[in-house]
């Protein structure tokens, strides 16, 4: 893991974290494509984002 990255909880790949990241922001793992949610900022904690539900989106 290098600076500005965090480990994907699904596949252990390095996930780039934007400098202006916010808690509860969604990011994607570039390796496995998992959608991840930033659960903590210091240090960065990633969890798998909740599964998309039937009423989600526009």
């Amino acid at each position, binding site marked *: 893991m290098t600076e500005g990255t965090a480990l994907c909880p699904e596949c252990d790949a390095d996930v780039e974290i934007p400098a*202006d990241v*916010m*808690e*509860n*922001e*969604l990011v994607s793992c570039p390796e496995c494509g998992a959608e991840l*949610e930033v659960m903590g900022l210091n240090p960065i904690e990633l969890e798998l*984002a*909740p599964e998309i*539900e*039937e*009423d*989600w*989106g*526009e």
Partner: protein
Amino acid sequence: MRVAMLVTHIRAEEKLILSAFNNREISPDIILDRELNFDISRGSEQLAPSGIAWRAYDLIFERCVSTSRGMYALAVLNSWGIRSFNAYETAAICADKVRTSIALTQGGIPQPHTRLAFTPDSAMQAIEDVKYPAVLKPVTGSWGRLLARVHNRDSAEAILEHRQTLGDYNHHIYYVQEYVDKPGRDIRAFVVGDRTIAAIYRASNHWITNTARGGQATNCPVTPQLDEICVRAAAAVGGGILAIDLLEDARGNYVVNEINHTMEFRNSSQPTGVDIAQEVIDYVIEQVEVMA
């Protein structure tokens, strides 16, 4: 001005909206819908998850990706007299395709020929009434999920049987529309109050053109004709901040396909050159100040 932004999580749109608020020196509290636990029988003096009373907020800006959570939260908050964008009534109409179609009809807004039925037999009749190809849609749902274009009786029977057998009761409400033979694209127009601030074409080789499904966005000029139908359609569902999806029929006339009350716009500012988030937030601030 004290603002809370209600979210499921933070997406590109929410960051743009926060930045637009920050540009006007407002820092909204972010409230996660997963943390809501309303005591409906008590009022707005109860604390929000942010630790301050709900009634302290001048505005709730609802940005939940979960339609049902956002809608019911607005129902509670508006019942306590707390102002929100959009209002619950607008959200409730837009979240339900049947209610949207009724509102468009009442507003005299052109839309695809639409029928409603409740059993596979009557739905089959509805499909044959609108003629093939017909489109079946869930009454709630988005990102083009579970839409079906039905070309003949065989596929109609299969889809109806699947929906009746595998779906919950929501899928036993058969919302049937004529298929509009559009020119490989549809239009998404952004209405803020009584103005259409921008519009995009969403082009796709697939009949479902949502950008969430790979549709490509390019600028669509907002002509007086487009502005007029969009503003009227927005008013028909209660008004606010709305994304109007339109189709162009074979004669080039606009028909309104659906209206979205928690719009996604990350792909739309760049092609249109319009700062959609800032336009929206400046309107919202102005409205709250007018009401204060």
